[in-house]
């Protein structure tokens, strides 16, 4: 049975397993699959132009006197982060979309030559039937194995809770605690998927400095990657009552020729253009759920690893390798 499955489905099976089955509509009606004539989803370029026109905004304060970012927030709306760079229609789950990258202005990740070759090698071995693949299966998106890391944890919906000395980000199945009490970083040798976050307030902005990231997950599912020396700096700024401007700067001279940035608006759940009607978790559904359901705003148990075992086994048996943190030759 298993051999038959692999022989028959091969790459197609891998594609279906690695990708979300349903596309996300930009607003209005849910749609199962995108078509080649789907209009291009806006991302960083459009948002940078929009936010330049916003009037100054001063956020309400918590009892501690810092900007109050609390509440339920969506991630970037649009076609998903299958590929963070600008692209045209690729397949039914990857519609045309602007780049997440706001700097450099061309929207490209400023890889070094070695790193660009590495990214292209990964992309050619995704085994998902994309143009330019070489027919080999190299790495699957680590996220398909339920591995979650920085900064993708911020690319979904989440609740922000602030307590004295902490900003806490909650999803239905994971969290980040960001100390804002001025404590120093741990040694950068202590690596982890989420790294070591240290927050501080600069006026209206929560600045989070993240070190110690292990480099074992990707920015997207197309092989755009970082490494164990990558330093990330997030800036969370409320720019309207229902909008946080999220900006992240990525620094790593071993992989990129210059620091670069991604930017998108996080809308309060249930507000803003493109609120996702297909969202299945309580954060995203909070605004859209029928008010009569008293449980609409609760977070209920959401497992990943527990239900993912068959996917993992199939990806392994299809020959996908384990993605180790990439380190360029000296």
């Amino acid at each position, binding site marked *: 049975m298993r051999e038959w499955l692999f022989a028959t489905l091969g790459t197609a099976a891998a594609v279906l397993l690695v990708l979300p089955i349903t596309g996300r509509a930009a607003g209005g009606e849910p749609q199962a699959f995108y078509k080649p004539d789907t209009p291009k989803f806006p991302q960083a370029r459009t948002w940078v132009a929009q936010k330049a026109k916003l009037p100054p905004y001063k956020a309400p304060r918590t009892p501690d006197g810092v900007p109050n970012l609390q509440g339920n927030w969506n991630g970037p709306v649009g076609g998903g982060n299958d590929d963070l760079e600008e692209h045209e229609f690729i397949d039914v789950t990857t519609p045309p979309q602007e780049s997440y990258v706001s700097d450099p202005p061309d929207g490209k990740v400023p890889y070094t030559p070695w790193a660009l070759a590495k990214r292209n090698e990964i992309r050619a071995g995704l085994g998902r039937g994309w143009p330019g693949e070489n027919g080999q299966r190299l790495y699957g998106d680590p996220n398909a194995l339920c*591995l979650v890391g920085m900064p993708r944890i911020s690319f979904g919906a989440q609740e922000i809770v602030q307590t004295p000395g902490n900003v806490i980000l909650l999803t239905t199945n994971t969290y980040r605690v960001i100390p804002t009490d001025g404590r120093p970083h741990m040694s950068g040798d202590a690596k982890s998927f989420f790294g070591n976050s240290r927050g501080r307030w600069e006026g209206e902005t929560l600045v989070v400095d993240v070190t110690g990231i292990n480099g074992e997950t990707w920015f997207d599912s197309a092989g755009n990657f970082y490494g164990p020396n990558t330093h990330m700096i997030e800036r969370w700024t409320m720019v309207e009552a229902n909008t946080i401007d999220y900006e992240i700067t990525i620094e790593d001279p071993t992989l990129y020729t210059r620091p670069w940035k991604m930017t998108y608006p996080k809308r309060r759940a249930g507000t803003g253009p493109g609120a996702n009607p297909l969202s299945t978790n309580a954060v995203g559904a909070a605004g859209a759920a029928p008010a009569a359901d008293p449980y609409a705003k609760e977070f209920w148990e959401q497992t990943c*690893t527990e239900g993912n075992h068959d996917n993992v086994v199939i990806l392994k048996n299809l020959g996908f390798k384990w993605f180790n943190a990439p380190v360029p030759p000296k």
Partner: protein
Amino acid sequence: MTRWFVGSITAFVVFTFASTPVAAQTAGTYTPPKTREGQPDLQGVWQALNTAAWDIQDHGASLGIPAGRGVVEGNEIPYTPAALAKKQENLKNRDRLDPIHKCFLPGVPRITYLPHPFQIVQQAQRITILHEYSRVIRFIYMNGNPHPAGHIDWYMGDSRGRWEGNTLVVDVTHFNDETWFDRAGNFHSDALHLVERFTRTGPDHMLYEVTVEDPKVFTRPWKMSMPLYRRQEKDIELLEYDCAAYLLKQEWDKSDSPLLR
């Protein structure tokens, strides 16, 4: 079911008054500080300091497992005869059968006494427990909603809290039967029902009590209790133990891993 329930309540009352848990003697005498919402403040980073993760009953040492006093009041777990046989099978094969080897959600109350810290975060209508172990989150709702209709098979159950004086009382139902209480094979069914009690007993100590009911496995309710300790390190914070990721990384290149079959 009803008859069992009434019988079990009677047994529970008798049991409770017959035993005098040492730790419980100090409960209720300390007045904890209050949160901004006026609730007893349980916030901070806490950890159990005992050997319950290996065995919740009295046990001697073996390789890699320290000896320990149990956390079960009276030390006896009232298994039905069939369940006791299963527990002994579990114990014999624990290196293979303990579900924690799969790095799935470890269940309640086991998550509380794993050797990892956890952080309690309080809001007016919800108490959240963030666990370092696999970044497990428990949401304890205090918004007036009862348990949702079920049965629902959840690893960590559905937690509904209330305050009794300065004690947080959490009623937990809707479990699956895929978690154990410890490494020693102590187990439950999907009929598990827990009542947990968190009571501050001092600035840096909290009493954790949990009453266990499961008519498919036990002949009467029984109880565990243990102190929880506030971690004293100046810059204590939850770090990362991504069990599933480490397991996959270790097993990925093995040609025939029993864990990836």
